[in-house]
């Protein structure tokens, strides 16, 4: 799940307000609550889901949670994968509208791009819920991990528990093509510069989502920075790649990952250099979103924003 958008709340609020003003001119966006038909709690409903990228385990975990929860809530799911392509996602939303679903759940490929999808759905009277990445369009509710916060957590853990005396050289392996990952990077570097003046972020390199590339980047980092003490990887695949290079030269450089994928947890438990991971909770994201859908369609109220907090996993709490 390398892909959320961690706007600070203020920014997000204003964006959404602007949006509202603009769009009301043409399409009725906000008043779908009034026009919406309520469904009784046990009646079967159909929900279209477009996930950001099924190539990432994170979204598969969300999907698994959705499927699990769907049985419980008597929901029929139509799950599609946007493969990171906004245009493809738009096509899927169109298809959902054709299929006349009762609600749409999106993991938007990007915030701005999903606005028109939300508008399309609104025009067809179908409520939209977002997960993971917020939309600039007006949605019923948004459920997500705070990536920026996650980056801060990683920095905090590294400064306090990994480095000696809150000092040393550290590096980041980032994923520059993905907004959410850049937010993690920012959360990390911002926290360090504010709270740990003796920690130097000496290198930031991109792995483009490719483990193999992460291994190369790590090799070069190790060579460049002899005193490197720790690396923050914005995704677990980056950490896997980094670990292979660190192990190969046998240097003592600690790694903190992000995602909370099983391979990361196993590595932490095995007591190697991969010492901690920032875990998201895809299962909660999935199940809470679907619950919100059910509640909303039955006429209940739902929060506009349901935050799912990231947590730190290390040897003390990994299982």
């Amino acid at each position: 799940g390398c892909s959320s958008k961690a706007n600070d709340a203020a920014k997000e609020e204003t964006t959404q307000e602007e949006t509202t003003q603009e769009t009301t001119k043409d399409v009725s966006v906000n008043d779908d609550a009034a026009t919406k038909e309520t469904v009784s709690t046990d009646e079967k409903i159909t929900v279209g889901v477009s996930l950001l990228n099924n190539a990432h385990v994170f979204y598969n975990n969300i999907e698994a949670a959705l499927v699990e929860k769907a049985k419980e809530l008597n929901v029929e799911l139509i799950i599609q994968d946007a493969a990171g392509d906004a245009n493809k996602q738009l096509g899927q939303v169109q298809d959902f509208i054709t299929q006349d679903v009762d609600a749409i759940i999106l993991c938007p490929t990007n915030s701005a791009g999903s606005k028109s999808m939300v508008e399309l759905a609104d025009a067809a009277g179908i409520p939209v819920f977002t997960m993971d990445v917020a939309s600039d369009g007006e949605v019923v509710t948004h459920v997500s991990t705070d990536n920026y916060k996650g980056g801060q957590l990683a920095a905090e853990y590294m400064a306090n528990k990994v480095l000696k005396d809150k000092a040393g050289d550290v590096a980041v392996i980032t994923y520059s093509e993905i907004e959410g990952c850049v937010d993690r990077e920012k959360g990390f570097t911002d926290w360090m510069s504010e709270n740990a003046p003796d920690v130097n972020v000496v290198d930031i390199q991109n792995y483009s989502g490719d483990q193999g590339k992460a291994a190369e980047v790590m090799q070069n980092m190790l060579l460049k920075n002899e005193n490197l003490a720790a690396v923050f990887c914005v995704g677990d695949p980056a950490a896997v790649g980094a670990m292979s290079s660190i192990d190969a030269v046998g240097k003592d450089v600690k790694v903190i990952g992000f995602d909370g994928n099983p391979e990361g947890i196993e590595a932490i438990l095995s007591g190697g250099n991969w010492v901690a991971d920032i875990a998201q909770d895809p299962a909660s994201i999935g199940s809470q979103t679907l619950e919100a859908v059910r509640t909303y369609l039955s006429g209940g109220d739902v929060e506009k924003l349901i935050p799912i907090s990231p947590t730190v996993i290390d040897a003390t709490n990994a299982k």
Partner: protein
Amino acid sequence: MKEKTATNKFSAFARENTMLLFLIVLFLLALVFVPRFANAGNLKNVLIQISINALIATGMTFVILSDGIDLSVGSVAALSGIAAAALIKLFPDANILLSMIVILASAVLVGGLCGFFNGFFIAKLNVPPFIATLAMMNVARGLAYVFTDAKPIFGLPESFGWVGLRSVGVIPVTIILMVLIIAIAYVILSKTCFGRYIYAVGSNKEVAKLSGINVTKIKFIVYMICGILAGLAGVVLASKLQNGQATAATGYELNAIAAVAMGGTSMSGGRGGMIQTIFGLFVIGIINNALSLLGVSSYWQTIAMGVIILMAVVIDQNKKD
């Protein structure tokens, strides 16, 4: 006896037009087996869904017919979309006309410039097309990231969405644009001397040159056209999604090439054309739409797409024996 000729005629027609038959069979299968496929709204969706690829594939048809290839189209589309988005932000109150001017200008300037460089290296400096456009693919994508710092450019004026989102009457502007571009391309390729020259260059450069065709110029123009159409696809995409983003249109080059090649246009130039590309676009578009409506998992969609493309081409190939 009469019957026999009828059958013969049909089988001759079938042999000549396997791709059309394949498309018809596919369409009928989808009509029968895919719920809601036959819906008028859905057929419109299919058209909208193929429109971006259609614009790129049209440019790609020119390039491939001339015995070239353009791998940079996806990146060029992204860069043009970004340029359009960045430009329109200067005019927050733009009306539709101004928006369209900005959109067109960005497509023509950015796409045209990228195409110009491709053409320059390929036609003038003899760099193999694969390499020149691979380099442009990197450069354009890199510039897109540098320019946006990987953040989408959003908060665009309403009017910017006209071409991507609105309709004239019941027909979406995107579809009108697509039909228009395809029609123009068809006419150019099959009715004009310039089109004929493209085929000649694609068939045999040396012969074309000795017959008095300015091969360098033709190649140049072909890459410019492809660049401009990629740019157009990029700005339509940006309009549709109401933002400009560096990751946009990633991998679209392969979709476009697939549409061109599976229709039956030869990858080594000189044979094929827009009709073939239209078949390719529809086959791919219908498969995508149908599988999506059927709710097939994305993994299986990938596999099915591969298998069906292969099937179409195998059937099409065997008629030639």
